[in-house]
């Protein structure tokens, strides 16, 4: 089963949480070791910094996961729409696709698509896709 996060992101989350928690513990330990309010306020700030670090790490983690989910959702919607679109095959040759239009790409785009992919329909495309492009996740050419 896959996850919306990469290993690198998981490591960052752990790091942020652990560092934040450590700063919190350090702040508590420091504050309880002295009776001088001025010194304690310094430790209070250390603990607050720990909260901020942990909070930021967690928020970034969530945002990243949210973005992954959204991107995949968009891709699947596009794919679903393409599948549900009225088939153009009757107007094409009996073979499933014409070789010249098997794969198209947008100028400057990083991906190549089926000609029927919603992401290229209506746009100027080229059949010269080269070797550097990656297949579109939506239409899976």
């Amino acid at each position, binding site marked *: 089963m896959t996850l*919306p996060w990469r290993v690198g992101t998981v490591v960052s989350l752990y790091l942020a949480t652990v560092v934040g928690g450590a700063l*919190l513990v350090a702040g*508590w330990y420091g504050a309880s070791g002295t009776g001088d309010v001025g010194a304690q306020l310094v430790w209070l700030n250390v603990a607050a910094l720990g*909260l901020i670090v942990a*909070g930021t790490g967690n928020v970034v983690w969530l945002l990243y996961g949210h973005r992954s989910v959204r991107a995949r959702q968009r891709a*699947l919607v596009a*794919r679903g729409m393409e*599948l549900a679109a009225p088939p153009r095959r009757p107007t094409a040759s009996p073979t499933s696709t014409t070789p010249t239009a098997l794969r198209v790409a947008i100028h400057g785009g990083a991906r190549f698509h089926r000609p029927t992919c919603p992401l290229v329909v209506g746009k100027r495309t080229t059949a010269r896709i080269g070797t550097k492009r990656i297949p579109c996740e939506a239409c899976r050419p």
Partner: protein
Amino acid sequence: MELIGWLRAQWDRVAAWVVIAAGAVALLLGWWGVSGSGFPAQQIPYVISGGMVGLFLVGLGGMLWLSADLRDEWRKLDELDQRLTALADGTES
């Protein structure tokens, strides 16, 4: 047993509840400590160990909860992906 299986699958949601409960307990204990003394020198350690740690735990629990939801969504997307692939294969063949 079903419960074990459910727990395994939903471990992050269970962890979220546990962590949030722990955070609430920490906040309560911290409040009890803060109200037990009139001097900031005695209160500040409680503010940190009760208040800030409690907030930290609550935040962590919230993160776990949202992660659980995101993973559920991702699972749904997995299913959809499989179905679409099956559909696509079916249409093309």
